[in-house]
């Protein structure tokens, strides 16, 4: 029986595809060292158009007639008021472009002029090295270090020195943790339930926020922030699990990348924290077979955020305390409480991958 894994490692090899959704220019080469904000690939996307229906404007009956009167071709650069098409003759009628741009398309007697475009770029996302190029789209960036995956992110990415106050990890984010000394740092707290604390973090601003959990009422506010907010356990008042907490405390002061993307179960992209470390490491496993003795983190109430060991694997369906019958595993919590937990309610923390240094 396989179980899903929440990657939580003190030292692991981390490889991430950093690619554009459309073809563009790759700006890095293999072996190149990159930092979090280095652009790996970029392209330009049209965002505004000027549309001209030459056939209708000139009252013509066929697209071919219209296209004869168009004196531009696809790819031409045009300035404001440049002529796009004209009927000719003594009383020539003229169509001009109202804005500068590029002729994108000419079809069926119609023209499309790109008048505004925006740059779409993808950055490295963390400090690392380019190990592979993905033609016209981007590259694979690799680093070794701490990896802690979370449950929710506000869609932003950022980095900064990791600011740890151990007391703050046990309680709600406090205004004392949002002083001027925290400007530009990544601040960690047990949980956050008040909007004014997010506002205070934004006014500094901080480089990022890491919480055990967040009040769901703050989702929209969090999504509006320019800095990343990453939640390790989910919603409510659950503190960061002990294992992730220990990793954060051990690495206080290091530069941490907060990749607070939304969890996409189709691509596998997930909110995560990365701290690059100057050490060798092995790759992690995506799929792990369930075994007795493995460490797990439960994701749902009444055990959300609690660590437990796999105590027994159960054949067939198990009856839960609420009498639902489902596939479950016997877990033993750190306080020795035992409970049957459904397969989808927990994730494994793959301790077998906890290599320090290269293992051959």
């Amino acid at each position, binding site marked *: 029986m396989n179980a899903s894994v929440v990657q939580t490692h003190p030292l692991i090899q981390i490889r991430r595809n950093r690619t554009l959704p459309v073809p563009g220019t790759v700006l890095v080469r293999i072996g190149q060292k990159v930092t979090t904000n280095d652009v790996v690939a970029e392209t330009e996307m049209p965002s505004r158009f000027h549309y001209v229906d030459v056939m209708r404007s000139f009252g013509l009956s066929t697209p071919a007639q219209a296209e004869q009167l168009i004196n531009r071709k696809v790819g031409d650069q045009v300035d404001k008021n440049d002529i796009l098409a004209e009927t000719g003759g003594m009383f020539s009628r003229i169509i001009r472009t109202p804005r500068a741009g590029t002729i994108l398309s000419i079809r069926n007697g119609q023209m499309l002029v790109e008048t505004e475009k925006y740059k779409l770029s993808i950055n490295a996302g963390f400090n690392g090295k380019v190990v592979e190029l993905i033609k016209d789209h981007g590259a694979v960036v690799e680093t070794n270090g701490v990896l802690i995956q979370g449950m929710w992110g506000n869609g932003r990415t950022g980095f900064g020195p990791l600011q740890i106050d151990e007391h703050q990890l046990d309680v709600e984010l406090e205004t004392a943790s949002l002083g001027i000394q925290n400007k530009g740092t990544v601040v960690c707290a047990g949980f956050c339930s008040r909007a004014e604390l997010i506002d205070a973090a934004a006014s500094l601003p901080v480089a990022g926020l890491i919480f055990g959990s967040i009040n769901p009422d703050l989702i929209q506010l969090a999504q509006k922030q320019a800095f990343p907010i990453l939640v390790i356990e989910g919603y409510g008042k659950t503190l960061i699990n002990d294992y992730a907490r220990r990793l954060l405390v051990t690495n206080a002061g290091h530069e941490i990348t907060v990749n607070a993307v939304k969890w996409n179960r189709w691509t596998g992209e997930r909110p995560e924290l990365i701290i690059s470390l100057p050490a060798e490491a092995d790759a992690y496993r995506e799929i792990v077979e369930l075994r007795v003795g493995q460490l797990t983190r439960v*994701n*749902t109430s009444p055990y959300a955020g609690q660590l437990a060991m796999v105590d027994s694997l159960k054949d067939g369906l198990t009856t839960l305390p609420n009498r639902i019958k489902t596939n479950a595993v016997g877990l033993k919590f750190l306080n020795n409480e035992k409970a049957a937990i459904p397969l989808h309610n927990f994730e494994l923390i793959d301790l077998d991958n906890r290599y320090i240094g290269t293992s051959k």
Partner: protein
Amino acid sequence: MMTQSFTDTSSVLGIEIGTQNTRAVMFDIVEGTYHFLASGVAPSTQKAPFFDIGEGILAAITKLQLVIGRTLMDHDGNLIIPTQRNGEGVDKLFLTVSGGPEVKITTFGLLNEVTLESANRLAQTVYGSVKDSFGINDKRSVQDQMAALLAAQPDIILFSGGTDRGASRSVVRIAQMIALVLSTLPQKNRPEILYCGNHTVAKTVVEILERQAKVSVAENIRPTLEDEDLQNSSEELSKMVLNVWSRQIEGLSRIAPLCSEPPSLSSQNYQRMMRFLGKLYDPNKAVLGIDIGSAYTTFSTSNSKKCTLSILPYGMGDGFENALNRIKIDDIEKWLVESVPRDELKSILWQKTLTPGSVPIAEKGLVIDQAATRGLLEYTLKEVKRQSLLVGSTFEPIFISGSTITHAPVPQQILLTILDSIQPTGVTPLIIDKHGLLPLLGAIARQNALLPVQVMETSAFINLATVINVESKAPDGTSIVNARITYNSGSYMDLEVKQGTIATLPLGSGEVGTVTLNLSRRTMIEGLITPSEPFKVHGGICGVVIDARGRPLALSKDENSRREKYKRWLFMLGA
């Protein structure tokens, strides 16, 4: 390639790949007729970290093998087709899919209230979401519409323009606009287009568009202003969605050659079965099917003349975030059977969006799950009613499926969840499709019409109850019905039902009884012209239920009395 005809075959394996679960279902001939034997369920594996449906199928078949005690796969994990002399293997394989990445659709039409509305309804017959809609009344400039089309990044464009012999120049202009925008996109990012508009310009539209993208043409979904016909185009659209998924879901094209029919969308097959069932029951009513999936909730209604299908992007797992963004927390909280602090309720509900396959562990979690299911059903039903997507208003029977419903430990909880949220009127048998058989039966029906018919007559489906809804203006507590159920043995049982209550007459699953009702003044049962005449009813695990709580259900504003009432209703039903 297999060359057997269905008459040579007996065993049939159906596989349904859902967003969360993959189900393997076995049918075989027992004593001369097809029966459902068993099902095996395993987590689906098309998502990360597996990225291939194979693992989930393998696990589901492995579980099925254990239940039926029969080998279906060889030592290498390959399916044995056809059945061998030693009994190993299976004769036919059918595969349906309902769990794939979001398919983004944009719709084009002429008038917002006519063809564009029809195009949006057509989009709702597949597992997808409409990202933007464009009509000739669109207030955005052409430039802004073009930018919006690019931003939407559709996988499929639905183009429904004009009634037959109606406007044609506007249709051509829209086609030209679409072609112009698509010409700016890289070839592999261009969506497929389904044209289902004015047939007189179909050839011109195809000529304009086919240089930019793959174009399919289906029958006009709005041949006249009054008529809407989605069936043909819905089938074409289903194929397009499956094409999109075949490129995105690893393993589908690998398994397809083993199947007796090409893999198909579950929704398409679900509707085929509903269409068939609609012809079997009372022509004055309609059959209603509801499937509450992880990502989508599907509604289908059918009678002898018409069949509708509507798939809404709200579910109890992957679609729960969409649901919570639409459903007010009050509309979930009002259904709680026990008190849960509001902050905790919100946190537990939102946590479910992060753990879409999770199952409630404790009683409180179950209570919240059932309240959320009521909220979801109530909201989605309101949506399909608002869009006039139901055939009729009284249903016989209602089929319901989805693990949230079927994993409820007590059948009375399932019953009340359905009754509270759907609030059916008249006389309605409720049937649970516990194993999610309807889509698979619909897929098999394409080759073998006999199997679904015979399986429907077996106990593969669970008769939950026959519900008789009595409506009266009498005050609560007044006796409004005296009911008698007469069993086949000749014995009978009488029951007095008071306004505001719900009561049950025992009649087991598979049993048939006769009900006689004596209604008080100003009391009626919708669809029953002469209620005093005895009528036959089928039993169920909750018996025959007389629901005299009124329509719509009047819920007390006081939390405590409301919860007391819920508990009393459960108690009255024997929970």
